[in-house]
């Protein structure tokens, strides 16, 4: 119990975090009630579309949290976090594909439809184990974090930093996208995975499953926030920020900067992977476009818009920008990319601390 108290202690002085957690709790209680307990005709009723949409925003928020942890606190601008998100999503997708069983179009008890279609006779080796949830859950965390660890090991030890690192991370996600597009990779080619039936025996099309997934996402986001806050408030968190501000100085007082960076990067990738894994059963599809370089750039824009180096700002940014995206892509689809670009330029020039920076400044003026 004592260690748990230590764990949440940093929240006591974290006003933004308190506000966020309370809001999240309200949403986590209100959304299921408005979805399940109100009749479809009621004005207060939330459609399954809205529940899924909010669930999706929360997945993006978790992803933004992961990006802010390394960018806002350690100065590592990853333009490839979409790759870790997608890898987590694919790991979940593989499990969901195996759960389809004989209910697929071709009715093969072992092989997913796309493999039957490609005339494959047996399951590729890397698909084994994915029929078990615990194995898939392990891979959701391991696949992205292991890739991040290896990538970080080479990049950080060679002291690749700044814009060079960002470009390599873009290349990483682009390369993965091209690889996953190929049919013979064994991940369903450009169609990816879809048509999922059930998760842990629960029907994915049922309202109750949707709500349960929604709640799991809310819990994951809350836990993710608490863990990130613990990390950045610990002594290690101050070392990480010292690395961001003066990397070589941190080395001269005895810190193995590479080791801090690699572990933080791998942890951040694991968070992104979990976000992806929660995303896939809610939206019902995963395909290689999730690896698209533009996705990773968007993540960084969410963080910048919300306010980097605050954690809650990243979450606010993810929700704000995605809400704008949902709105604009339905109302004025051709405007969206221009709006996104303009938003990024505006925030960079006028709001270097993002939306929460603006709020904090207002608050400080009033006080």
């Amino acid at each position, binding site marked *: 119990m004592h260690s748990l108290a230590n764990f949440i202690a940093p929240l006591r002085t974290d006003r933004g975090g308190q506000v966020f957690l309370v809001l999240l709790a309200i949403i986590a209680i209100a959304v299921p009630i408005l979805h399940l307990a109100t009749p479809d005709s009621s004005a207060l009723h939330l459609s399954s579309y809205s529940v899924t949409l909010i669930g999706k925003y929360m997945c993006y928020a978790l992803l933004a949290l992961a990006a802010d942890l390394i960018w806002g606190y350690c100065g590592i601008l990853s333009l490839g976090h979409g790759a870790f998100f997608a890898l987590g999503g694919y790991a979940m997708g593989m499990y969901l594909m195996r759960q389809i069983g004989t209910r697929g179009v071709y009715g093969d008890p072992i092989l997913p439809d796309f493999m039957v279609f490609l005339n494959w006779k047996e399951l590729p080796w890397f698909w084994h184990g994915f029929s078990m949830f615990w194995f898939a859950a392990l891979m959701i965390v391991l696949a992205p974090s292991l890739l991040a660890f290896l990538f970080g090991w080479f990049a950080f030890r060679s002291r690749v930093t700044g814009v060079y690192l960002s470009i390599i991370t873009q290349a990483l996600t682009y390369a993965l996208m091209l690889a996953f597009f190929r049919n013979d990779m064994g991940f369903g080619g450009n169609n990816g995975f879809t048509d999922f039936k059930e998760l842990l025996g629960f029907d994915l099309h049922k309202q109750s499953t949707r709500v349960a997934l929604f709640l799991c996402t809310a819990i994951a986001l809350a836990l993710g926030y608490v863990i990130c806050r613990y990390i950045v408030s610990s002594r290690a968190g*101050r070392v990480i920020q010292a690395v961001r501000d003066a990397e070589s100085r941190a080395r001269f007082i*005895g810190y193995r900067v590479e080791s801090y960076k690699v572990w933080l990067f791998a942890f951040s990738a694991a968070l992104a992977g979990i976000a992806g894994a929660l995303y896939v059963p809610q939206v019902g599809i995963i395909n290689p476009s999730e690896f698209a370089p533009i996705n990773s750039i968007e993540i960084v824009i969410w963080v910048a818009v919300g306010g980097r180096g605050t954690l809650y700002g990243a979450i606010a940014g993810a929700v704000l920008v995605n809400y704008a995206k949902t709105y604009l892509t339905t109302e004025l689809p051709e405007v969206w990319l221009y709006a996104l670009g303009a938003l990024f330029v505006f925030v960079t020039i006028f709001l270097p601390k993002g939306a929460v920076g603006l709020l904090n400044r207002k608050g400080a003026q009033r006080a």
Partner: protein
Amino acid sequence: MMSPIKRIKKFAARARRRRAGPAPDVSHKTILYLEDITVSFDGFRALNELTLYIDVGELRCIIGPNGAGKTTMMDVITGKTRPDQGSAWFGQTTNLLGLTEPEIAEAGIGRKFQKPTVFESHSVFENLELAVAGNKSAWRTLTAPLTREQRDRIDAVLDVVHLTDRRTATAGALSHGQKQWLEIGMLLTQEPELLLVDEPVAGMTPQETERTAELLMSLAGEHSVVVVEHDMDFVRSIAKTVTVLHEGSVLAEGSIDDVQNNQQVIEVYLGE
């Protein structure tokens, strides 16, 4: 009440007994051996077969005109720059050329930079906390708070560098002189055996300069101290032995009076 400087010394002695890694083997009374070190950048020889020894407990001043190789020498000792040839040993058994920057820091060499480099967005206390001696692995700093002893040490150092009342201030908000002191404080909490101090009194008031001189002199003995400085009055006030660098190698070495009367040194300083 013990004077702050005495408290620091007591800590240093305790730290030496506690140090995790092997302490440098200084049975020959020499803590630093630089032999035949050459560093060239694009054909320019920043260090030219430099050979220099520092004794245990010594306070050595290094002077020389701009471009003489003083900072490059510190870069070699702390692992930032690898020499093209030569050897650098910390005590008889620690080969500095085989270690990374953090390993060298851990072995017991601390450095204060020419331009004060403190962590500007951290508080004064946090700056000292970052520097404080102890296990600096990621897992340790993530899970363990400071020990009682580390806290005491930081408090004692805050006292020595006269920053106790600014402990929660952001380091970026300090005056230039205070930043210099904070960096010296970081050096002290780090508990090194050998302190490399690059231009400690640049931008300090005469009173601050005097206090710095006092502090450095009190540290010598328990520690070995190498000071690079331009301010000749300051050098005169602290140095027993002065080494003059010129074009990457040692031009002269001796007491301040010997050095100042050395014909070659006068020529170098007054120009050809």
